[in-house]
């Protein structure tokens, strides 16, 4: 008895009898169509029925993604009015802007703080000042550096979740092998370079077998490295400051690397480095003895380094001409509400839940980071597995710790400084050439972004005031 189906005559061609499925090929087609339909329809969580569904885009995967999922689950269990549906999204910085411009953004999204100025100036976010203050989320609850990074152009746009600051990590075993005191990390950059010379090992053919420190490993904070020289990238208004004395010293320091170790030799050594999240990470394999990293590194050491890996963490050394110590740069994951969010009030409810000390401590503990909140419970400190947590807390509370670069032309600057610094480190450009080239190109990129901002500034401010006034 053939199965009665919708009329597939149009799809299956003239051989098919109207309204029936006869051959195996036709069954196969129906099966594929059915699978396609099933694949396209979202599997709705039964708990979402009757609740306001808040779409939440988050960039984290793996253990960080699990940590976020646990907090979302707690929120969904804590009440019966809102259901947060989390979606893991790669390339968040690009996809969120496209979704927002297409008027189909999520209700809440997890970004990195570095993208905030560009998002704000392009009117992609809702201001949170009034919501935050009415929800009891105030500046005094947070470590100053993390509150500061959520503000731009006079308004609050985000609230921090998991934060980090950078510090020096050193391999104690290599220190011992090189005859250095494993408990005494370098305090100044001159000292770091002396240690570097002692630790670096060359092969008979002149290639590098091991290096004490190289700025490119991992090289994630190249745009902020001038902070350890007492420098700044821009004046916060309109001008890049790469021609300042601290920036000149920074580039001179970079230039010294190919002179001492050989640019091609460093490139060749780097060519053998494995991925960060793998046992082939050069810090874990002992190819590099000292690296700048964030608080998360301890977790990767536990997962990927040899069991007897012995390391220390301390503030990263500063330049002798810069008396400030300790210095660090801070960054954080932030929660934002994109412009065009369908349920901003419910999204804010979720953000407020995440900002509560128990939820925040749970999230940060699962992510093996410290919290951006000023007050931390004794249980958090007691249960935290990071052996050097206090070093990071001390750095996060230091008045000399500043937010990671927040430039309206951040992406252009990051790309260009990486290209220029790599050429300086390869020895194909002098430090002065790299610095001058960067200043010229990036001043223009900044000027263009500021010109764009000036054209829309008045309109933006009135839009934000209206949005704030309309805040439920």
């Amino acid at each position, binding site marked *: 008895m053939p199965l009665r189906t919708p009329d597939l005559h149009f799809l299956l061609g003239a051989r098919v009898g109207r309204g029936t499925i006869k051959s195996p090929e036709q069954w196969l087609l129906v099966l594929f169509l059915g699978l396609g339909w099933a694949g396209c329809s979202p599997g709705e969580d039964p708990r979402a029925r009757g609740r306001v569904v808040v779409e939440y885009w988050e960039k984290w995967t793996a253990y960080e993604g699990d940590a976020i999922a646990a907090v979302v689950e707690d929120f969904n269990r804590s009440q019966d009015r809102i259901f947060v549906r989390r979606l893991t999204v790669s390339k968040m*910085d*690009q996809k969120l*802007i*496209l979704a*927002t*411009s297409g008027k189909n953004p999520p209700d809440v999204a997890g970004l990195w703080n570095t993208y905030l100025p*560009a998002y704000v100036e*392009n*009117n*992609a976010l809702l201001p949170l000042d009034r919501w935050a203050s009415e929800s009891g989320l105030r500046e005094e609850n947070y470590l100053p550096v993390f509150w500061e990074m959520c503000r731009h152009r006079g308004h609050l746009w985000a609230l921090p979740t998991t934060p980090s600051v950078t510090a020096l990590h050193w391999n104690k075993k290599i220190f011992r092998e090189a005859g250095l005191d494993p408990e005494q990390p370098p305090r100044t950059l001159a000292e770091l370079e002396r240690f570097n010379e002692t630790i670096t090992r060359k092969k008979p*053919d002149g*290639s590098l077998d091991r290096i004490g420190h190289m700025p490119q490993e991992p090289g994630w904070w190249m745009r902020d490295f001038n902070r350890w020289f007492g420098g700044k990238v821009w004046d916060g208004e309109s001008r890049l400051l790469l021609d300042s004395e601290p920036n000149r010293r920074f580039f001179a320091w970079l230039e010294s690397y190919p002179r001492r170790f050989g640019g*091609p030799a460093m*490139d*060749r*050594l*780097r*060519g*053998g480095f494995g991925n960060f999240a793998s046992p082939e990470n050069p810090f874990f394999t002992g190819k590099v003895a000292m690296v700048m990293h964030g608080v998360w590194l301890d977790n990767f050491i536990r997962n990927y380094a040899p069991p007897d890996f012995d390391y220390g963490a301390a503030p990263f050394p500063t330049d002798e001409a810069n008396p400030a110590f300790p210095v660090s740069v801070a960054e954080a994951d932030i929660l934002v509400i994109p412009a065009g969010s369908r349920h901003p009030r419910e999204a804010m409810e979720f953000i407020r839940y995440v900002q509560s000390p128990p939820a925040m401590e749970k999230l940060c503990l699962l992510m093996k980071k410290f919290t951006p909140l000023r007050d931390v419970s004794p249980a958090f400190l007691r249960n935290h597995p990071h052996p050097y947590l206090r070093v990071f807390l001390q750095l996060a509370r230091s008045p000399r710790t500043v937010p990671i670069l927040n430039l309206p*032309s951040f*992406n*252009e600057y990051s*790309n*260009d400084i*990486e*290209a220029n610094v*790599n*050429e300086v480190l*390869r020895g*194909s450009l002098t430090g002065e050439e790299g610095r001058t080239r960067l200043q010229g*190109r990036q001043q223009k*990129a900044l000027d*263009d972004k500021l*010109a*764009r901002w000036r*054209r*829309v500034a008045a309109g933006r401010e009135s839009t934000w005031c209206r949005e704030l006034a309309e805040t439920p």
Partner: protein
Amino acid sequence: MTPGDRQRQRQGLGFLLPWLVGFLFFSVYPLVASLWFSLCDYSVLAPPVFLGTKNFTDMAQDPVFWQALRNTLLFASAAIPLGTALSIGLAVLLNQPIRARGFFRTVFFLPSLVPVISLAILWQWVLNGQMGLLNTLLAYPLRWVGEILGTSCPPPDWLNDPLFAQWGLVFTGLWGTGHAVVIYLAGLQEIPAELYEAAELDGTNAWQRFWHVTLPLLSPVIFFNVIMGVIGTLQTFAVPFILTGGGDGPGRSLLFIATYIYQHAFRYWNMGYACSLALFLFALIALLTYWVVRLGETRVHYAGR
């Protein structure tokens, strides 16, 4: 026109309609819109603001654009001749009456089935300066050369040395020549055997037969492959993007025009500038294709004409 003709016409138009709608929305509209955006400052989120020709004057003064253009043209000028020569050579060999010919044809075609992402990741390891397969193979002969010359000849650091990075990419491209080989094989099989017999009777050797019979009669296929090669290499994006982890490569040697368009459009939110770059690339491809077509008028031999 009979009612049956009219019905067939309606059916024909009905079948054409999806393509027409797609063409209008996904080709014509973006092209016209990009013409307008190229004259504007456009961040995607805010309405475009007319700037006149500023994006084009900026482009003329942008050293990174010129570097990307130079890289693109250098890559095309190395990859197209090498790819063409290699695929013709392989096709001629695979056209010989040898044992297990079908097996060899399959073997040479298989790499072109590898998805581009997997291909790029695979070649990241093949070209690794320290432990890559290519350098492992090169190490012994280079040591031998070094001993003869009394110096050290280390194998190149393909992906970290600006001098060699583009060559690494060219080799990656050669991996996928199987596709062109199949087209050349089809062309070779169209060449009448009598022409070779006649040439043999005239006392020609194998090279002369290749030069005076095979190449002229294969020229329409070469022409097609070269045009596709020009378009493909000028739009190179995915493999260098993955090989460099989304970066520009050492000394920006793997930054191509298509990558630079992507950076401005989706990372820097300068869609207006990206559109002006895209229009430039469009004009460049059109110009080079026109030049190849003109060249083809005198160099391509169509047997039917």
